[in-house]
């Protein structure tokens, strides 16, 4: 079995990945640094439990996903709703969402229209290229649920790209 890497090795190799994962999971740019820092501090404690025979990225993603979930819930409670990750439920919300996310690039803006549970599967599958059975295992969900979320997320993402590319920019 390969040795467990130490924290600095993981940081060097995966800092970019963790940073981008938080952004893809809807964490505001202003909070990405804090959450990345928090994750690596937690990792110091958790690394001894990591199985080095398995890829580290899905493991890191799961940590980031749970942190993003808590972070977004906390933000929602604090009524800081400028960039929260809920799928809009009305055309008015949709318009607000489009306006609020103009400054972000198209992928991240489109991801904002995908509900977080679906988005996690989508990011792992279609960006990180993780096999769906492994995604189901990492997220602790049934395989069929993983496939279902991926299908719906792809629809949401595609619709969002379509919508955003047709919207006039302010």
């Amino acid at each position, binding site marked *: 079995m390969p040795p467990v890497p130490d924290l*600095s090795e993981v940081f060097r190799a995966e800092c970019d990945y963790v940073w981008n994962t938080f952004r893809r999971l809807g964490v505001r740019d202003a909070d990405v640094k804090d959450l990345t820092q928090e994750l690596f501090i937690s990792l*110091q404690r958790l690394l001894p439990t990591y199985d080095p025979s398995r890829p580290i990225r899905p493991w890191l993603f799961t*940590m980031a996903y749970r942190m993003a979930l808590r972070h977004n819930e906390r933000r929602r409670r604090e009524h800081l709703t400028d960039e929260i990750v809920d799928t809009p439920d009305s055309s008015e919300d949709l318009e607000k969402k489009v306006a609020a996310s103009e400054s972000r690039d198209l992928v991240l803006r489109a991801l904002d229209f995908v509900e977080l549970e679906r988005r996690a599967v989508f990011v792992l599958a279609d960006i990180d290229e993780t096999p769906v059975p492994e995604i189901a295992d990492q997220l602790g969900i049934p395989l069929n649920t993983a496939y279902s979320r991926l299908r719906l997320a792809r629809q949401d993402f595609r619709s969002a790209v379509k919508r955003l590319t047709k919207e006039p920019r302010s």
Partner: protein
Amino acid sequence: MSDLEEERLDQLVSSLLEGERQRKGPSETQITDLWSAVERGLPPGAAPDGPDASPQEAPDVTTGTSRAIDTALRWKIGAVAVGSALIGGAGGAWVHAQVAATPQVVYVERPAQPVAMATPAATPTPVIPPPPPSSNEADAGRPSTTKRSSVPRGRPVPEVPSGSPDALLARERSLLDMGRTALARGDTSAALAAVAALEKEAPHGQLVEEREVLAVQTLVTANRTAEARRRAALFKMNYPSSPLLPVVEDAVSP
């Protein structure tokens, strides 16, 4: 939307995702700042060798193993030993009593491999003699920070007043480390005794989740699978957002 437009949309989505896969992360300056912040946030004595002035450099694979071992050796932990009778395999109640009793202090090497997967190793060798008898109860539950070797071994452990939150946390850490060390050498009785001591001394402590992880891993190792699964289910119910949940789930997965 026409077929042509649909096709263009498909191409756009594909190219967007491909571009996202190539996305760069933070700048080098941000990475350097970030690592400094991570180091500052680590508990005393836990800071590993960080990335040097070039944090983006590829790890030195030729020395990776030795570095990991070296780091592990420098992360000495002050663990509380349950005494030689524990090694002899005394019964659980007796062990529990010994755990709760004034401990003998030893230093053990922290395993470089994950505790849960470590090959049972030899019993840790005490490297310092037990402290002289003391009537000061504040000293009784706290591992000594005396080191036999003059080799620097990380940041010194700060003295904390007995009964303070820091003292309780230190006690929790000691018991947890003791349990993990016991599990690493295959001594599930001692590991469960440490769990029991944690439940008794710090039922609502700061390391409750870590305690439960240790309990589940130990029960699995002891082939008490049904108990492990019950405990894992409780963990999932009580801490659904815990970053340790995947560890617990891994432990009880077939």
